[in-house]
Every structure is written in structure tokens, then in C-alpha cells.
């Protein structure tokens, strides 16, 4: 995996920590180097700090996305949710806020890799606990009991299922389910998610399937 961070201390700590967990790690300090490494070395995961000098994290992400299928986990000290949304919408697979512990980071990396494997395997049935979504038959069931969703509700759930485990922003959901014109109207997603939860028998205060990502959007538990 490739670690992109301009601080040497951070590079050293991550290289050490991730190697203990059997990752093959290379570190670079700038976006330009990251693009070069990604093209030549082809890492599976890129850990990308947003606060890079010169070519910043977003620019690097935009440059990386078309040339690599590596999972990109964006890292930032900013707890600002706007950055999270921007990074996710720009193609990041996950987002981790600094400071974090090695264990936590490793868990996130493994989740991203697992998800990537699931997607490439093309499994037509996606499971989240008792929830089962059969993409081929457009069939949704909880504990074997069929759940009838409206086309909009199904589309939203399908999109979350296709990205199970990954936070999906309101913007992306609105664009994917309703279309470009609906972007900006978060009431739509909130309303439809509330309806889906009701039908799935999910409690918004303690959701088992669709989890709130405060300030970002929703995530289907993997």
C-alpha cells in the first residue's frame, strides 16, 4: 500500500505500524510523487492525506482516480464534514480523521479491501445482518420475510448495497437515485431512508442496517 503524507514522523509511524500487519508499504511526501508511484507500482490501497503542499489532496485524488483501481482512504486532521463529502464524492472509498490508532486504521483498510473483493466477485446477493438484497431479482427480504419497496426506495437501498460499508453522501444518493436536478434537497434522502427503515423494521435510534454518517450521508452496514 501507498502512504501519502508530507510529515516524515507520520510516514515513519505508519510504515512501521502497517508493516507489523504484513502490508507492503511505500511512503511518499507529495501528490506528484503519489501519482508517479501509483502508475508504476500499482498499490491496492492508497492512504492519502488531504493537507499536502503544492498539489493538494483533492487534486491528487482527481489525478489518481482515472489511472488506478486502488482503494483510496483519505486522511485529514480536519473534522470538517464538507471535506469528507467532497473526498467521497471525488471517488475516495473511505475517510479517516487524524489522529487515529494503528488498529483502527488497519480495520478500515481491511474493510475497504473486503468490499473491493465483494464488488469484483459480482455477487448478486448482498447481505447486511438479516437483510438480504437480491440484485438480480430486485428482491429485498428481512429474515426471509419479503419487503415491498417503492422503486425509489429500492434504488436508494440498491445503491447503498452496491457500496455496502462505505459512507455515501447525500449528494451522491440524490444524483444516483433522483438525478442531477434533485441535488441539494436532503429532505428527499432523509424521507426515503425513514420509509425504508420503517419497512425493514429498523429503529432510527439504533439502526441495524442503514447507519447515519453525521454530516455526510448514510452507510449500509457491511
Amino acid at each position, binding site marked *: 500500500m501507498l502512504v501519502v503524507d508530507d*510529515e516524515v*514522523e*507520520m510516514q*515513519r*509511524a*505508519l510504515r*512501521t*505500524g*502497517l508493516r*507489523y*500487519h504484513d502490508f507492503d508499504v511505500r511512503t511518499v511526501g507529495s501528490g506528484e510523487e503519489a501519482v508517479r508511484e501509483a502508475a508504476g507500482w500499482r498499490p491496492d490501497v492508497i492512504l492519502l492525506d488531504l*493537507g499536502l503542499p503544492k498539489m493538494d489532496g483533492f487534486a491528487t485524488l482527481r489525478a489518481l482516480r482515472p489511472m488506478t483501481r486502488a482503494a483510496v482512504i483519505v486522511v485529514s*486532521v*480536519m*473534522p*470538517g*464534514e464538507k471535506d469528507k463529502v467532497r473526498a467521497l464524492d471525488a471517488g475516495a472509498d473511505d475517510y479517516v480523521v*487524524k*489522529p*487515529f*490508532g*494503528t*488498529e483502527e*486504521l488497519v480495520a478500515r483498510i481491511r474493510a475497504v479491501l473486503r468490499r473491493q473483493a465483494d464488488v469484483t466477485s459480482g455477487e448478486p446477493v448482498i447481505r447486511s445482518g438479516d437483510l438480504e438484497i437480491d440484485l438480480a431479482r430486485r428482491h429485498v427480504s428481512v429474515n426471509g420475510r419479503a419487503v415491498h419497496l417503492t422503486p425509489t426506495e429500492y434504488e436508494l437501498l440498491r445503491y447503498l448495497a452496491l457500496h455496502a460499508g462505505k459512507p455515501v453522501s447525500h449528494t451522491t444518493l440524490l444524483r444516483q437515485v433522483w438525478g442531477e436536478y434533485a441535488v441539494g434537497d*436532503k*429532505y428527499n434522502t*432523509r*424521507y426515503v431512508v*425513514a420509509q425504508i427503515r420503517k419497512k425493514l423494521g429498523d*429503529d*432510527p*435510534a*439504533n*439502526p441495524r442496517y442503514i*447507519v*447515519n*454518517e*453525521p*454530516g455526510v450521508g448514510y452507510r449500509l452496514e457491511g
Partner: protein
Amino acid sequence: MRASGGPARRSRALSNALLLVPPLPSPQRPDRRPEGRLPRAATRPAAARLLAPYAVAIGGAIGVTAAIGVITSLASVPGLSALYVLLVLWLGARWGRGPAVAGSIAAFLLYDFYFVPPVGTLTVRGPAELLELVVLLAIALVTSQLAASLRRAQAAAEAIARDSRALYELATATLRANELAGGLEMVSESATRLEGVDRFAEVSIVSGQATQLAGSPLTADEIKQAQWSFDNGNAVGIAIKDGQVVPMKNFGPAGNTAYLPLRSGVVVVTLGATRSDPGALRMLAALIGLSDLLLDRQRVALQAGRARELEASDRLKTGILSSLSHELKSPIAALRAGLTALATPQAGLAEEQRELLTDLDHQATRLDRMVGDLLALSRLEAGVELEKEPHGFADLVGGSLHQLKTQLEGREVVVRIPEDLPPVEGDELQLGRVVTNLLENAIEWAPRDGRIEIGAVARDGRIEAWVENDGPSIPPADLGRVFDTFWTRRTRGTGLGLAISKRVIEAHGGTIRAENRRRGPRFTFTLPLARVVV
């Protein structure tokens, strides 16, 4: 009768004033003053001008008499005296009553002298001749009266047309003036050029701040008076009625200052000793209307500027806090990454060493919490805007419970939120922080096998929510202090969690309080309901 004097003179004065309005896009203020108050229209000696019509009248009568004489010497034509009627008609229409009457009398005398037997005398015989005189006089009076009123009507119409054009041009010029104060100055100057208006000043009042923008300088007392007039919506001295400025009855002697409150300011006017005519008062009202428009535009421009400044300072605050956050958090990030890297079993350190590293990591985490709380508090105190949207309270609780999953492991958490609870209006992240803070507080104090409850109900158009636990009561003396910054009951707390919660709730227009139930403490807070139903 000043029928042709007043309005015509005034209009000339105004047209003169308009010549001073700068070319439209030019931003410069009209600082060239007119020389003298009013240019005199008369150029010839007044007496000659006054007597000329009478000379014409008498001359005309002589001429007509001569014509009648010539005609009668050639042929006997009856009723030629009717020619005088034509003359008198023309005199009345052209010069008015005086010359017409003079012409009538002259005609009568001449006709009597030359044509009425006995010729050569002025003897009047019988009523028929007198009647002729009366008829001629009557024609003279009626015609001149008619002509005069026609002329008056025409003059008035011309005056109104000129006024309207003048006002229109002034309005366009002032509204296009780049600097509103310049436009106000133009209005003020036009007003002081009106008959009977000694002073015309405009005071803008924006956010309670009175500033004179145009006209001759006012004293501090006068500005205070203007402010009072604006605050109370009370006009002093003058009012506008039927599109005309009307001095109030109880308004003292001439030279007193009048105050008229407008939408965004006050116009201060001093009427002079000479009484203004209705036309001038109408024009004054129109100029006050124009001032109103300009002052209001000034206010809007000022407020827009202020909003931009506020936004800029908001961006600055956010920028400073962001870079501060980066500077403070980066070292902690490196610390935690390094400590946790070494603490993993794969690093091959002894159990004792790993424990030490884990302890150090906890300290680093605590430091991170403190820095985060401090930054959150400064952000709240800097007054950075909240992003308010409707949110289901259950969603907020769900987010916090999910975030605290590991800490809540093995705890009994009861959530009491009615399914039909209306949504709250607020900032998702900030409110989520409040719920998380209160739950963390409860986790801290509740006994391991104790119970934590979070719930909400709609009450009095608001949402009342609570978080309670079975832990020890808060000493009564501390109940009021728990929300103070840096106050904490814990040895390891930052003393900021509850302070932040209080600020967030208050920024949403809600209240938060702590109390003791029979079994443990309870924190209750209120939030506004969303206006849009999700």
C-alpha cells in the same frame, strides 16, 4: 392675481437648477452653485412694459375709428360700430382686462365724438347709446376674464409639465449617481432653490446610527431631534398631505426647523419667512419622496456591505481555527500512530512495555479530546454559523449511539422516542455532539450494571429531550456550575463537554439544565421544532 408670475418663475428656477445636474454617469457632485437666487425675467423697464398694452388699446381704438371714418366717407354702411367689438375682443384676449377696458372706453368716446350726432361732442343721448358702452365694457370684461383664466390654466399645465420633467431628470440623475450622497446633495440643493425653503438636510438612520448625508450641516441637537423623530415615527412641523408639504398649525414662527421621518432616515427642512406657494410645496413633497428613495437605497447598500464584512470575518475565523486545528492535531496524530504501531503484539515488545505504550496512547487520546473540545468551544465562541436543517431526533441519537458503540458495550441503554416525534431544526453535527457529550457523561457516571436513558417528547411547540443515568447525584451546590467552562467532577475530564453542550443548545435557541432525580442525575434540554416537516 399672480396667475402668470408664481409657477412660471419657479419653473425657471428649477430648470436652471437642473442645468447643474452633472452628465449622467459622472460621479462628481454638483458643487457649482448658481449665482444669485433667481434670474430676473424682465429686461425692459417695468413701467414701459406695463403701459405698452394701454397705448396699443388707445391706438387701436383710434385706428378703428379712422377706419370707420374712411368707410363711412365712401359708402353708408350701418352697424360699423361692431368693429370696436372686434378690437375689444382682441385686446381682452391678448392683454387682459385693463387694456380691454381702456380700449372700450376709448372706443366709446371716439365713436360718440366722431359719429354720433351731434358730431364733435361727447353728449350721450338716450339709453341706446349707454347700452352700447355697457355692451362694449361687458365684452371687454368677459373676454379678458376668459382669456386670463385660459392663460392661467395653460401656465399651470406648463408648470406641472416642467416640474414633472425636472423631477424626472433629477430622479434619474440622482439614482444613477455612483455615490448616493451625491444624489442626496443634488436633491438638497434643488430643494433650497425653491421659494420659501431655507434649508433642506438629509439624515440617514441605519441600525440606530444617525448620519447626516447632505444639506447644510446640522447641529448635534438637531441630529438628536431627527433621531427622536425617526425612533418615534413622529413628524415635527410639517406633514405631507395630498402630495404637498403642509406646515402644521401649531408650528411656530418662520425659520423653525421641521423634521419628517422617512423609511431609512429623516429630512430636516427649514421654511423661510416667505410663504411658499402650493407649487413649491408640491415640489418639496416630491423632493422629500426622492430623498426617501435615496436614503433607503443608502441603507440597503450599507447593510449589504456589512453582511459582506461579516461573512469575510467569518471566513477568517474559520480559517484561523482550521490552521490552529492542523497545527495542534498533527503532532498528536504522529504520536498516536507511532505509539499504537509499537503497541501491536507484532512489534515484539514485552507485555510491560506494551502496557506502557497503551497508557501513553490513552494520554495522547485525552490530549486530542481536549484540543478538539477547545477548538469546538472557540468555534462556538467565534460565532461561526450553524447549518440548520430539519433532523429526526432519533437519527441524531442513532448517530451518537453508533459512535459510542464500544463504550456502550454491555450497558443497558433505553431509548424513549415516540415514532411520530416531529423533527428538530438544527445543525446535525453540533446537536450530535451534544447528544454524544451527554451520553459519554452518563457512561462515565452510571454504574457498570446501571441504566442509561435517553428520550424526547414534543411539548409547547418545542422538543424536550433528556439523558439520565443511575449514577450518584450531583451535589445541589454544583447543579448550577456543571455547565461552566473547565468545571468538572472528574479528575480526568476536560470540563468542556457540558460547557460546549450548553453553548450549542443556546445557539439553537434552546435551554439546558441539570437536576437530580430520586435515582441519579438527569440532563434536560429543549430544541426548536423544524418548520418543514420531513
